[in-house]
């Protein structure tokens, strides 16, 4: 059992939890993920590591309560426990002295992006950071990202804060020369930004949240086509150069269980499990 040490709702329906797992904390790197299982009947759900506290022996992760498991997780409190917490899994994000790096985070993904940003900063990179959210109330890790950035931008889908939408990134790309880019967010965001960086042939690392079961390279559920080859996101990724990723295939594979996920979520809500909607 893995105990929840702290838990906080950082934006509507987005929670940050810190879990006691000293061995995992010791070995975690930015860009890696864990797989959790809440209880005996639970599904294995991957979540990206947003930070560790070696003194406390804890691992933090931010999650969006979208389906049955994350809604259930949202209802747990500090002091409760998760049945399984497996990690670190996947390869660490590429971190070295690149020069100038563009970082874009969408929604819940701003938390793990911060973990990468801090490591890049330690390697003396210049960071241009864009933190995006649906509305001004949905911003996650805005202040933390701002603190580590050399240049910082905010974007919201509805324009309630900062730039409206992400198109302004085209202007940034036109005006400045980058050596590396890291994008974490929903697949639609990844795809959009990669379309912008492609003309500059800028290596754009994206973290792919494909469907996963084991997370250790055994099941093949997470397969994605990268550069025309089949790769396993959990073993060969989850970070890949977005310029080579077949996003349309990824999107269609992500939808495979949508009817079942909706059913599970609906039954859970009907039984009184619903959380408030943001």
């Amino acid at each position: 059992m893995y105990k929840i040490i702290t838990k906080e709702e950082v934006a509507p329906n987005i929670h940050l939890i810190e879990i006691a797992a000293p061995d995992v904390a010791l070995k975690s790197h930015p860009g890696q993920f864990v797989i959790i299982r809440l209880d005996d009947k639970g599904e294995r759900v991957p979540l990206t590591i947003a930070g560790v506290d070696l003194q406390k022996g804890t691992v933090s992760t931010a999650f969006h309560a979208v389906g049955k498991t994350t809604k259930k997780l949202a209802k747990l409190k500090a002091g409760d426990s998760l049945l399984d917490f497996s990690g670190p899994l996947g390869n660490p994000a590429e971190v070295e002295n690149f020069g100038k790096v563009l970082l874009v985070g969408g929604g819940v993904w701003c938390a793990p992006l911060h973990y990468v940003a801090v490591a890049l900063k330690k390697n003396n990179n210049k960071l241009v950071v864009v933190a995006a959210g649906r509305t001004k109330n949905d911003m996650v890790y805005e202040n933390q990202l701002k603190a580590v950035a050399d240049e910082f931008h905010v974007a919201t889908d509805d324009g309630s804060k900062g730039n409206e939408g992400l198109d302004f990134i085209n202007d940034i790309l036109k005006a400045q020369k980058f050596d590396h880019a890291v994008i974490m967010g929903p697949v639609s965001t990844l795809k959009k930004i990669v379309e912008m960086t492609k003309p500059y042939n800028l290596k754009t690392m994206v973290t792919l949240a494909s469907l996963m079961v084991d997370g250790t390279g055994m099941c093949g559920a997470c397969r994605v086509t990268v550069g025309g080859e089949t790769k396993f996101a959990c073993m060969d990724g989850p970070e890949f150069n977005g310029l080579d990723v077949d996003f349309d295939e990824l999107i269609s594979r992500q939808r495979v269980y949508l009817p079942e996920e909706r059913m599970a979520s609906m039954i859970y809500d009907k039984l009184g499990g619903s959380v408030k909607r943001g």
Partner: protein
Amino acid sequence: MAKQDILDRIHNFYEVALGYTEEQAILEATRCLQCPNPRCVQGCPVGIDIPAFIKEIKEGNYSAAASKLKEKNSLPAVCGRVCPQENQCQELCVIGKMGDPISIGRLERFAADYERKAGVTIPEKQPDGATGKVAIVGSGPAGLTVAADLVKQGHEVVMFESLHYAGGVLMYGIPEFRLPKEIVQAEVEYIKNLGVDVKTNYTIGRIFTIDELFADGYDAVFIGSGAGLPNFMGIEGENLGGVYAANEFLIRVNLMKGYLFPEYDTPIRIGKNVAVIGGGNVAMDAARCSLRLGAEKVYIVYRRAREQLPAREEESENAEEEGIIFRLLTNPIKFTGDESGWVNGMECIKMELGEPDASGRRRPVPIEGSNFMMDVDTVVIAIGQTPNPLIQRTTDGLETTKWGTIVADEETGATSKEGVYAGGDVVSGAATVISAMGAARKAAQGIHGYIQKKKTGQ
């Protein structure tokens, strides 16, 4: 031995084979000639004293029979169910020359089941003054066997398993209706009670590397990480929705209990017409699971002929009985999908058998122009597995073959890296439970000898 009625069993996941009653077991045991020079034992990869355990059953001492089995085999309830006895002990049994050989496997199962229900006795440890600390990577039959053997000899044993349950393929691959998961967990429990510390959720190579284990004070490491990496065919449409690797399909069904969705959270999606590609045990299991999940038509699509099916005969027969349709000498060349990205068809080509290939089997050759379409909405690819490369990639000085298997000494399990031993599917490639256990027993002896030498300098 009685089996669950076909019409019932294709709708449930309960065990198909029902096992012997006491009377049946005694009757069968009485047929054994108690050969002074028993041939059956030569066919057993772990060398069980077969006549001795059968004699105990004949005399009604079922727990004693189980103890006899456990001297050589820590997982008798498993082996009694899934071992290919027909090509091992039973193939050599003298009675088989005249008629049916003794059903050694069924007797093994009977004794193990009896003991599990009656309560298991834990043997004393036998410390020999040279005890060490050993890390076991992977908790399949290989890892469990090494763990049991070493802990009984007084070593401190910690077993690391990346999944959330110990048992390897026994938990995630072989379906409930052939091997109830409760039985696997009872055998794991036995091994824990012997004193083995089992750490699930630990993926070695990610959380600790092999070298870090040594730095942490382990004297030796055994790698029993199996052959879990699924092969694909590399043909068009393989990444469509509804095209599963057998491992994903079986993990969802068995380990995650997808057949009980939504009571259990992990879904498994299956259509009306399912094609399973391949002809081994894995393919038969996937096909029989599909049927039980409600598929209307389930095909085994295999590129060679019936006689060449690599599955155990009993399993092919069970599959046929249950109504699985065999499309032999047939090979898929392309999958097509609908606009939502879900598989809706499979183009196949007919095959004929040509000259024997390196494996000694006649090589299947495509018949030009024989292409045809099959109407399928779910595909399971079960064309074999190779070892997961994670440990090989993260361990310096570990010699591997071009197939990704680890090179290990057949007699001791020693690898090219000092203190590192390996056995089971990670060394042999996908094989059988009992061959993994046989290799594991030798490795346990190898590790014991290594530690003794290291500690006493002799």
